[in-house]
C-alpha cells in the first residue's frame, strides 16, 4: 500500500463488503465519504467550531491576563511624603488603569481553565533569570542527634527530577509567603521527631567578569541569608524568629 493511501485513507474502504452487497438498496442509500473529505454534518462542525474558538480563546487568555498589569497614566505623580518624595500608590487608588479586556475574559474562563489545568502563564526565565533560593534545615532529635539537610541538594535528592521538585519548594516559598516555610519546618519536625530550624537563602549569581577573575559560582559567600523559621514540636505551630531583609 502506498504512503499516499495511508495518509488519506477514509474511515472505511470505498469497496462495499460482501455483507453490504447483500443488504437491500434502501440501507445502502447513504453515500460513502470520499478520501480526505471533511466528515460530520455542517451543524456538528459549527458546534465544534464554536467549542474550538472558545477553547483556544481560553488558552490564550490565561497567559495574557497573567502577563498584563495595571498602569498609571503617563506623567502621573502620586502624593508626596514629608521629604517631597513620591509615595507608593495604593492598589485601590482611582488613578490605576486596569487591563479590562484580559481580566474580564480571564474571569469568564477561569473555572474552565482551572478544571483543565490551563490557568497559568508561560514565562520560563522571564522577565529576567535570577538567583535560586535554598533552604537549610536542622532538626534536633530526642536523643540529641542533629539531622542537617538542604534543599535543593543533588547529593540528598535523587533522581534529578526529585531534586528539581525540592528546588521548586524552596523557590515557590517566595511567592507563597513565609508561612509555607513554617509548614516545611512542621513537616520536618514530624518526620524526624524533634524541633526544626529552617534558613532561607538566595543564591546570588556571578557576572562573567567575576567568573573570569576566578570566583566560583558555588562560593559560600554567594549565598545571602533571607529569613529563618523555627518549629518547636509537631503540635505547635512554627514561629518566625527573624526576617532580616525578608522579601515577604
Amino acid at each position, binding site marked *: 500500500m502506498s504512503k499516499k*493511501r495511508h*495518509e488519506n485513507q477514509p474511515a472505511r474502504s470505498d469497496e462495499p463488503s460482501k455483507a453490504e452487497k447483500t443488504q437491500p438498496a434502501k440501507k445502502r442509500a447513504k453515500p460513502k465519504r470520499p478520501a480526505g473529505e471533511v*466528515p460530520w454534518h455542517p451543524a456538528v462542525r459549527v458546534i465544534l467550531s464554536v467549542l474550538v474558538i472558545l477553547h483556544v480563546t481560553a488558552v490564550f487568555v490565561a497567559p495574557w491576563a497573567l502577563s498584563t498589569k495595571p498602569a498609571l497614566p503617563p506623567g502621573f505623580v502620586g502624593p508626596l511624603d514629608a521629604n517631597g518624595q513620591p509615595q507608593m500608590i495604593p492598589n485601590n487608588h482611582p488613578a490605576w488603569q486596569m487591563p479590562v479586556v484580559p481580566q474580564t475574559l480571564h474571569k469568564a474562563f477561569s473555572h474552565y481553565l482551572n478544571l483543565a489545568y*490551563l490557568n497559568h502563564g508561560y514565562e520560563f526565565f522571564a522577565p529576567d533569570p*535570577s*538567583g535560586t533560593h535554598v533552604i537549610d534545615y536542622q532538626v534536633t532529635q530526642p536523643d540529641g542527634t542533629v539531622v542537617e539537610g538542604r534543599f535543593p541538594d543533588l547529593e540528598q535528592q535523587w533522581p534529578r527530577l526529585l531534586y528539581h521538585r525540592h528546588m*521548586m*519548594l524552596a523557590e*515557590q516559598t517566595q511567592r507563597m509567603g513565609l508561612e509555607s516555610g513554617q509548614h516545611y519546618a512542621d513537616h520536618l519536625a514530624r518526620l524526624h521527631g524533634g524541633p526544626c530550624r529552617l534558613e532561607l537563602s538566595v543564591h546570588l549569581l556571578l557576572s562573567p567578569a567575576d567568573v573570569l577573575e576566578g570566583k566560583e559560582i558555588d562560593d559560600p559567600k554567594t549565598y545571602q541569608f533571607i529569613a529563618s523559621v523555627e518549629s518547636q514540636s509537631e503540635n505547635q505551630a512554627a514561629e518566625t524568629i527573624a526576617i532580616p531583609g525578608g522579601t515577604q
Partner: protein
Amino acid sequence: MGIFGDIRSYLGEAWEVWNRFWFKPTDPATLSLIRVLAGALLFYTHLVWTFDLQAFIGPEGWLPVEYLRNHLQVTEQLDGTLTPIWSVWSVFFWIEQPWAVWCVHILALVVFFCLMVGQFSRISSVLGFLLAVSYAQRVSPGAFWGLDKVNCMMALYLMLGPCGARYSLDRLWRLRRGDTSEAPASATANLAIRLLQMQLCIIYLFSGLAKMQGENWQAGTAVWWAVANFEYQSIDMTWLAGYPALVALATHVTVFWESFYIALIWNRFMLPITLWIAVAVHGGIALFMGMITFGLAMIFANLSFVSPSTVRRWVDPLADRVALKLSGDG
C-alpha cells in the same frame, strides 16, 4: 457579482479552509507517536513521586492539603472572606489516609504505563489526564513547574483523538485477531493535533513577550544568568564568560524564535528550521540546565508539527520490528 456576492464567496472559502484545517481526517501516526512519548514521560514523572510520595502528595506533607485549599487556592468573596476555588480539583484533596494515596499512586502508574504502551488507549488517555491534573493541582503552588503544564497539555489532547490507533498494544491485539486493515484516517486525530499546535504557539508567544520585557533579555546577557545558576547547572557552561558575543547571539535567537514561532511554524520552508531550533533550545535546556524531562516534554510537543507521513517513515520500521518480536514471529 456585487459586494455582497464577493463577501459571501469569501466567507464560503474561509469556511472551507477552516473545515480543512480543523476537521480534515488525517493519519493518526503523529498523535500515536506523541502518545508513546508523552505516556513514557508521564510514567517517569509520576514514578519519581514514589521516592517521597507522602511528603509531596500526602495530606500532611510539605504543604498540608488543608493549608493549600484554605490559604493558597482561594478566591476572595464580596464580604472579604477567602474560600477555596471549587474548580481547582484533585483526587488527593479528598484522600486522608496514606494507604489510599499509595493505592491511587499505583493505579496512576498502571494507567500511565498503559498509555505509553497503548493498552486500552481510550480509557487510559482519559484516566491519564485526570490523574496528571490531580498530581499537578496537589503541588500547585509548592513543587509544580513547566513540566507539569506541558504534561497535562499533552494528556488533554491525547484524550480527544484515537491515540492508540498506531504503535500500540491495542493495534497489535487487533492484528492478532486477524484485523489487518490500516488504521483509518481520523478527523479527531487532526483536531487533537491542531489544538496541541495552537497551544504550543500560544506558549511560545507569551514566553517571548515576557522575555522582551526583561532587561537582560534585551541586553543579550540573559543566557549567561541562566547558565551561571549553580542550582540549575548540570554541565559547567561558565566558560561562556569569555564569549559574550556567543551569549548575546543565543539570547537574541531565543527571544526572536519564541516570539515569532507562532508565524514561522506554519510556513513550509521555515517549519524544519523552526523545529530544529526547538530541538537545539530545549535540548540545551535538558543537557546543560538539568531539566531533562522538561526539555524532552517540549520537544515531544513540537513533534505535533511533524507530518504523519514523516512519522511513519521514521517510526514504522521500528514499530514493525517490535510488533514482530511481541507476536513471537521475529
